[in-house]
């Protein structure tokens, strides 16, 4: 099959992929989405908008990092 997308990247350029990182609060299990910088940070905690618990990425119940 011939790629119809423009550019030189073929499938890599034309396939759509998710771009949003999610974390699950270790206290209340609610999910919220965070910027990649915050996900990688070791000095700024994330803040759960649901229960206001603050935690580092390593403490998250689960992480989605596409």
């Amino acid at each position, binding site marked *: 099959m011939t790629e119809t997308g423009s550019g030189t990247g073929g499938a890599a350029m034309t396939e759509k992929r998710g771009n949003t990182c999610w974390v699950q609060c270790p206290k209340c299990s609610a999910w919220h989405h965070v*910027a990649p910088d915050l996900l990688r940070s070791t000095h700024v905690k994330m803040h759960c908008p649901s229960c206001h618990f603050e935690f580092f990425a390593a403490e998250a119940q689960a992480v989605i990092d596409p």
Partner: protein
Amino acid sequence: MDKSLKSALPSLGSFLTGFGSESVVLRMAAPIATVHDITALQYALQEKKRYPIVFAEKPILSDGRESAFPVVCNLTASREVTAAALGVEDHRAFAKTYASAVGSPIAPLVVSRDEAPVQEVVQHSDEVNLLDLPALTQHVGDPGPYLTAAHATTYDPDTLVDNVAIQRCWVKGAAAMSYFPYPATHNARNMRKFWERGEDCPIAFWIGHHPLVLMGTQAKMGYPESHLSAAGGLLGQPLRVAPSVTHGERILVPADAEIVIEGWVPKDTFGPDGPFGEYTGYLGPQMIAPTCEVTCITRRQNAIYHDYGSGLDDMLVPDNMVMEGKLYAMVAQVAPSLVNVHVPTSGRRFHAYLQFDNPAQGEARDGLMAALSYRRVKTAIAVNTDVDVFEETDMLWALATRVQWDRDSIGVSGLSGSMLDPSLPKGARTTSKLGIDATLPPGEGAGPSPSLPRSRVPEDALERARDLLKSHSAEEWPLG
């Protein structure tokens, strides 16, 4: 100072008084919650395509208290009302007028503190309580109340020139909030300069003023250039400013604003900010942001709190109208047949419609390239004057009937863009853009246009038809 003169000066209060009729201002006398309900009211109005200014007299705070301050929102949700603030009768003529006014800046007038209504009440450190302000929690997923109409004012430590920008703040405590200056902004640049000197960044946020001042201070300026002078250009008179209590003459604040929050952005101190409902209509992710320590709040005795509904026409309309003025000035330099510019709220801040009067070969494409160089513009479409750039069905008709995509579309990759664009691939730092030339071929000489004529009925027949319909009620007829 003469109190009657004070009230005659341009301010949020004087503007509201001028639009006191019920057809423009919706006064909500009943209590209404600052958590979601005021914003929901804006959504409900937008569903009806109605845009009165909303004046909530009794906002209820998240802890159940009634706020001492009323909330105004939807202040600039209507293009008509916003244009009228500038004395422009037809909102479609705003771009040219704005470009001209901002191009003639007037330096601010410094008045003493006792001449500044915004300093009628001064609360120092221990008395400061941001939680008394009726800051709204707007959307599901916002972590708490946000200041959305806070005009962050800093200065360049090298030249002492001011910079003003609307930048959101999450109110986290009595004297603590996050502060999110987008990294590309001049305020962020000023902040980094102070930090590189090993100093905290002085800052003041002012809230509530006449729409001309709000839009003047949103003018896109070079660095460093004064937004206070741009506001004067739009006002047609010097903007009255007074020394801030914390920073003195280093940070001048509008004397006729409603509320000023003063403080410092501590060096290299960060915390989480967001998620937050952005102008794109999506909930932006939680990010790392600087913090702000508040030292002082000053206000009018009967201050009004102003909120912008983020992502609603309330915020998009004034911002897009300011963009129209800037784009008009940019595009007209390379394409003199430019007649008008519209940045529609349907495209958030990503689309620009350009209208040309019989552009010469290549001129519309020159104009498209100029428009695409504006960071936020992602798609620019050029049309002729027979297409109404304020009617999207007209724009789509032009796209359907005047464009051969391989001939008339210009795709450009690797340009600066909004990093809040939800379609950007993860990690991307540039964006791709599209210009579409939907103009007709230029006419040659005095003969008819070398394109198909548009179907139409005689104007006098149309007038007779309109008269006929006046005697019928259209309310019961089927919708399209």
